[in-house]
């Protein structure tokens, strides 16, 4: 399989913040060498684990974020390992790191120390970037969703309940997408100039531009938004549109318009379920009337609520969509495995896992495009699986020297 990042060598200093960017590089064909501590990077210890048994080679979160990478275990805190890393960077195209600002300067591994490789694209993805008054503050993913504004917009209509941050490392994802945006632009530029550069990405900066209308509403309308259960925060309280189905699921019944055809079908459907009520009144055939009621009144919403309560979730979704109504069903992530649509789009890709004696179906990744080739190309590495390959094969160290470094605990 060809990939957009074919032929590149990426060195990634293991960190939970940056590993998705490294994964997309590896999925796109780059050789990604992950440098992790001899005890294993933090991504190996978070869980969930296979059979819930703690094992750094069987962490499923690590498996997902590190497909196709190589693992070299080095204690970067010690000078011999620092020297090895410097030598690796001399031949690398991209360096991806997320250490607290200043750390790598102390190791002689900051951009200035390794920029004799003029082609190197040195990328620091950190909580706050390389400067500023909060630079050294401690953060994690949920803390970023708090500070970046996502929580302020997310939660429940009940004003006594807490704001909520979504699960799944979303702040780190937002940082990674921009880090990789910068890297890819720098690669584009390097094709004509031959020159690499330094890229500084702050997760807080990335998150802070990711709250859609919240900032424009404040900047241009002076509005503070109300949190609302399962739907957009808004300057005005709105009726609940996250509605329960007959089989205990929820439908996000947000729709921007009801055209004549869709409306006629909707009423027919309500009549079939015996819940149309007053909506059979001919006045609702006028789009302006029904849309005004949908936005400000109760009749249309009550009818929709009754209809959804009378149907199973799957029926609501597929019938509404077939009428051009953009309602969404709140599915569990894993329920998508059974959806024919994604199967037909070849979204699930088998990755062999000898650890458990079978292949596992991974999500392909965001883009369907053979030319980019972004898809998992193999399982995540075991801890230190490629230490010898890289030190002996790439750096030309004699096996005896690697043995000695291993005995001294510098490598594993």
């Amino acid at each position, binding site marked *: 399989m060809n990939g957009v990042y074919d032929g590149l060598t990426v060195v990634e200093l293991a960190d939970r913040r940056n590993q998705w960017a490294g994964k997309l590089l590896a999925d796109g064909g780059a050789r990604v060498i992950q440098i992790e501590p001899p005890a294993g990077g933090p991504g190996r210890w978070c869980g969930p684990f296979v059979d819930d048994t703690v094992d750094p080679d069987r962490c499923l979160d690590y498996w997902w974020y590190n497909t196709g990478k190589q693992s070299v275990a080095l204690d970067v805190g010690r000078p011999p390992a620092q020297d090895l890393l410097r030598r690796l960077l001399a031949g690398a195209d991209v360096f991806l790191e997320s250490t607290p600002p200043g750390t790598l300067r102390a190791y002689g591994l900051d951009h200035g120390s390794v920029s004799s490789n003029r082609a190197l694209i040195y990328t620091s993805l950190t909580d706050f970037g390389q400067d500023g008054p909060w630079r050294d503050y*401690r953060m994690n993913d949920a*803390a970023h969703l708090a500070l970046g504004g996502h929580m302020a917009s997310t939660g429940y209509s009940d004003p006594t309940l807490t704001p909520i941050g979504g699960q799944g490392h979303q702040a780190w994802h937002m940082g990674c997408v921009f880090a990789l945006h910068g890297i890819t632009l720098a690669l584009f530029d390097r094709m004509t100039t031959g020159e690499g550069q330094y890229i500084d990405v702050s997760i807080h900066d990335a998150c802070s531009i990711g*709250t859609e209308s919240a900032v424009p509403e404040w900047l241009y309308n002076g509005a503070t938004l109300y949190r609302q*259960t399962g739907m957009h925060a808004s300057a005005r309280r709105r009726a609940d549109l996250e509605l329960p189905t007959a089989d205990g699921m929820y439908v996000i019944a947000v729709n921007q318009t009801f055209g004549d055809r869709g409306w006629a079908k909707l009423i027919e459907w309500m009549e079939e379920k015996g819940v149309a009520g007053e909506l059979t009144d001919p006045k609702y055939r006028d789009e302006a009337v029904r849309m005004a009621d949908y936005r400000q009144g109760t009749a249309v919403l009550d009818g929709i609520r009754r209809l959804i309560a009378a149907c199973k979730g799957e029926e609501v979704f597929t019938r509404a969509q077939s009428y051009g109504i953009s309602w*969404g069903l709140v599915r569990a992530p894993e329920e998508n495995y059974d959806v024919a*649509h994604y199967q037909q789009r070849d979204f699930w890709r088998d990755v062999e896992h000898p650890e458990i004696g079978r292949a596992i179906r*991974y999500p392909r990744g965001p883009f369907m495009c053979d030319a980019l080739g972004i898809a998992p190309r193999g399982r995540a590495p075991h801890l230190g699986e490629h230490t010898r390959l890289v030190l002996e094969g790439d750096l030309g160290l004699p096996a005896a020297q690697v043995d000695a470094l291993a005995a001294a605990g510098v490598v594993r």
Partner: protein
Amino acid sequence: MNASVTLPKGILNGVRILDFTWKTVGPWAPRLLTHFGAEIIHVERVGSWDDHRYAAHPSPIVGGPQKEFTSEQGTGPLHGGGHADGKKPYYNTPYFTILHHGKLAISLNTRHPKGLALAERLIGISDAVVENFSGEVFPSWGLTWERIHEINPRVVYLSTSGFGHTGPYKAYRSFGPTAAAQSGLSLASGLPGMPPAGWGFSYMDVMGGWMGGLALVMGLLQARKTGEGSYIDYAVTEGAMSLLGTYMLDFQVNGRTTRRPGFPPGNRALWPAVAPHNTYRCSGKDRVGQDWWVFVACETQAQFESLCRVMGQPDLSTDPRFATNEARVANQDALDAIVGRWIRPRRRYDVMRRCQEAGIIAAVVQSAEDRVEHDPQLKHRDMHPVVNHPEIGEFEYEGYPVKLSRTPAFVHGRGPLLREHNRYVYGELLGLSDEEMKSLENDKVI
């Protein structure tokens, strides 16, 4: 109308993108490239416009050609109202500028044969074509991938849609909340035992748009390397599922589903389970009466011991209920109550500062107002640059978060006015004469 256009010097000078995007998720992809000097031609329907020219949402004018727009339909500049004569539209709100600054704007009726011919000529001189219509729209104009590729084999075609261009859902309609719901993102957000909290904005229009931007630069890089264009069929729901891989694998390997008691865990931590890790109510309320909150977490024993000292309760760290992380997780309700009592009467930024000074993870749940007006870090990083708009004046907007040392991003002044660049694009780029353009205007093609 500008007869010529000069873009600032940037990495992407010489790259031309034909941009048929609208709403939110589509425009982000080309917008991210404006920061580097790409020439982006935003195409709007003749006699109509991108509805973000007037409003974020809901739009009062969706789908209506040639509707008279007056300031009564909105209040304040976000809604395009407030013009002195109350009638003449701005065609160019700040929100439109956020999504389209630095682009060129033309009008074109692609359903007219002459309009389609112009679109095809523009594809012939572009490096990428970008759209976020439902799957049937481009083919209904005759613009299938095969046709686009035939016109210009070097062109990158990025289509952003809810479900993609193939498969049983290809005609289904979607916007941010649909994609978040269908993928599982919404379910993975909320308090246990409560309805899903989802995301209180269209996360998948924003993050989904950024992923589209990533696809676009990937496509341009690949085309520069190989000389061949590509067709990127980007389904936002698939993008969203790609943010949930851990849950997919947990199901595949351990058979664990996310519909289970205790999931989602609110703001508590699951992988790994650490405590404390939660939001806590502070003193004070926001402008609409919602309480203020701060998030606090301890991921190490040292952080917890520091927190006990900061709270003035050092003995807590030797209390058997809280002495180890395992014990703290098991007794999380009691621990949250203790931390919550300490924080409740305190000011949110004081809690954050005192915790952070002691090395503890702490973050105010910041509103947009907090971030724009008070966040010293965003100010230092210039994340709300001021742009000058000829009709509205100066205003702040949301910047670009990648700092490249040698080829820095730059900010343009404003979004383009309606059909501001017709003369440049049709006259200079395509070489049409004034008479030809006049005739096309009379035929309502441009």
